[in-house]
């Protein structure tokens, strides 16, 4: 029994210490005087690695999820004779939930794990130490551009996901299942609000961007510099970010739409 409490106490302390360390890391990486001339090429490069390289998987997933939503929604709505509501159903589920959440999950698996592995390997091959000894702060040189790249890419990817998904829904609903073209768009427009739906989804994806990128960078930066250490860190990135995204999604949904 005592051992149980000891274990709980130790886990709690470890968690709190981890959060503290991660916060210090992020603050040290992001504060200080900005050096736009040096940072910009690095940021572009990371946008390529983090954003462009995740684009294909996001677009394809978005298209299929939109198509599935339309197909599933139609079979239910048609029973009530309310197939005009297919447009808002597809658009709202994508914009409010699936766009930000699925993008964040795919992003964690595609870009987050890659970030962790890359930084972990830089740690293992002493590249980070080497930077420090060259009087270059690895937090600002390595961590900061990757963080901003994640922060910028994720909302953009989420927008693309939703847009492509809605098009997929349109394709299945209108072209295939025969929902009226005009009704599909006009009913959608009538019930989707820019501020309430699109912007709240955008805020969600910004929050997820911070959390996923932050976890990925922290796990990479503090990975044990060994092969099992890096593989464990990569797994933890995916697991922790997914849990964090789903948990935060509930909280944010409750705050925004509850």
């Amino acid at each position: 029994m005592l051992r149980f409490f000891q274990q709980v106490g130790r886990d709690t302390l470890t968690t709190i210490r981890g959060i503290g360390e991660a916060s210090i890391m992020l603050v040290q990486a992001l504060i200080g005087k900005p050096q736009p001339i040096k940072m910009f090429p690095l940021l572009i490069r990371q946008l390529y690695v983090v954003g462009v390289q995740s684009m294909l998987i996001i677009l394809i997933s978005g298209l299929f999820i939109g198509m599935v939503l339309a197909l599933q929604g139609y079979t239910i709505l048609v029973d009530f004779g309310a197939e005009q509501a297919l447009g808002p159903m597809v658009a709202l589920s994508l914009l409010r939930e699936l766009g930000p959440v699925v993008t964040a999950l795919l992003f964690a698996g595609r870009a987050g794990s890659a970030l962790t592995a890359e930084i972990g390997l830089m740690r293992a091959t002493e590249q980070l130490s080497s930077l420090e000894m060259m009087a270059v702060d690895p937090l600002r040189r390595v961590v900061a551009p990757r963080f901003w790249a994640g922060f910028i890419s994720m909302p953009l990817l989420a927008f693309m996901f939703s847009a492509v998904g809605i098009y997929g829904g349109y394709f299945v609903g209108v072209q295939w299942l025969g929902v009226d073209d005009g009704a599909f768009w006009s009913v959608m427009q009538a019930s989707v609000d820019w501020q309430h739906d699109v912007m709240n989804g955008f805020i969600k994806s910004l929050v997820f961007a911070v959390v996923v990128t932050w976890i990925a960078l922290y796990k990479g930066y503090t990975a044990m510099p060994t092969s099992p250490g890096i593989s464990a860190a990569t797994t933890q990135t995916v697991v922790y970010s997914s849990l964090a995204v789903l948990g935060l999604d509930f909280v944010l949904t409750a705050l925004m739409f509850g």
Partner: protein
Amino acid sequence: MVFFAHGSNHRVESVTYANYADESKRTAVENLVEVKDVHFSRGETSIYKGVSLVVPQGKVTAVMGPSGCGKTTLLRLIGGQLKPQQGSVEFAGINIPSLHRGALYEVRKRMSMLFQSGALFSDMTVFDNVAFPIREHTNLPENIIATIVKMKLEAVGLRGAGSLFPNELSGGMARRAALARSIALDPELIMYDEPFAGQDPISMGMLVKLIKELNHTLGLTSIVVSHDIHEVMSIADHVAIMANKQVVAQGSPEELRASDNPLVQQFLKGDPDGPVPFHYAATPYHEDLLGSSR
């Protein structure tokens, strides 16, 4: 003259300083690095208990010792990546552990370190790797940077390999490329972490020659951490031997060879047993076998 650091560190230290002060009054700081009575531990494990040593300016100082005695830790202490629990680490008269972040980064521009793995940036070519510290710390135009980089690469014999990526280099070439990078900004101090580990005889010979030549031609101060006795003794002007969490002896190679300290002799000759025991500390063998103490 050999200095033994058993027991009373402070006495030995004062003798050491007196000695170097007499020997070379040419420069203002005759010892570029002075490590005084440093205690360092990682968690529960104590690594140093009162380590003191000096690195004379303009010379090659070798730090030797059995593996696991914390030689690399010494370099990280000098570079300010680790902080000792007690004692001071002075570089050119500046106490490294007391520096805050900004000042530490300023001081680091005057030193450089060659890591065991080379630590080249894997996403850049050799040329860009060498150019990296110059681009980072100066605003020189690109054509001047190119000239400097070519000179540095020529010095290590890799001018033809500028466009290769680190994963296309052999181990010895990678280390030479890393060496070119670490002399890119003409540092005052260069620290070599196990430069000979895992090298074939030819590249080992090249590195030995390079370290010696660079030290003389660029007038810099070198610290070589290694346990390849022959190579190190051939280039070092000053040698410190570490064991048992302390510096047990320092002096010139000849002085050390003439030393009657059993530990120094064991290390230089490579005897399997001696003051550094072959056996890890354990209960008496027969007791253990007979099972009387479990």
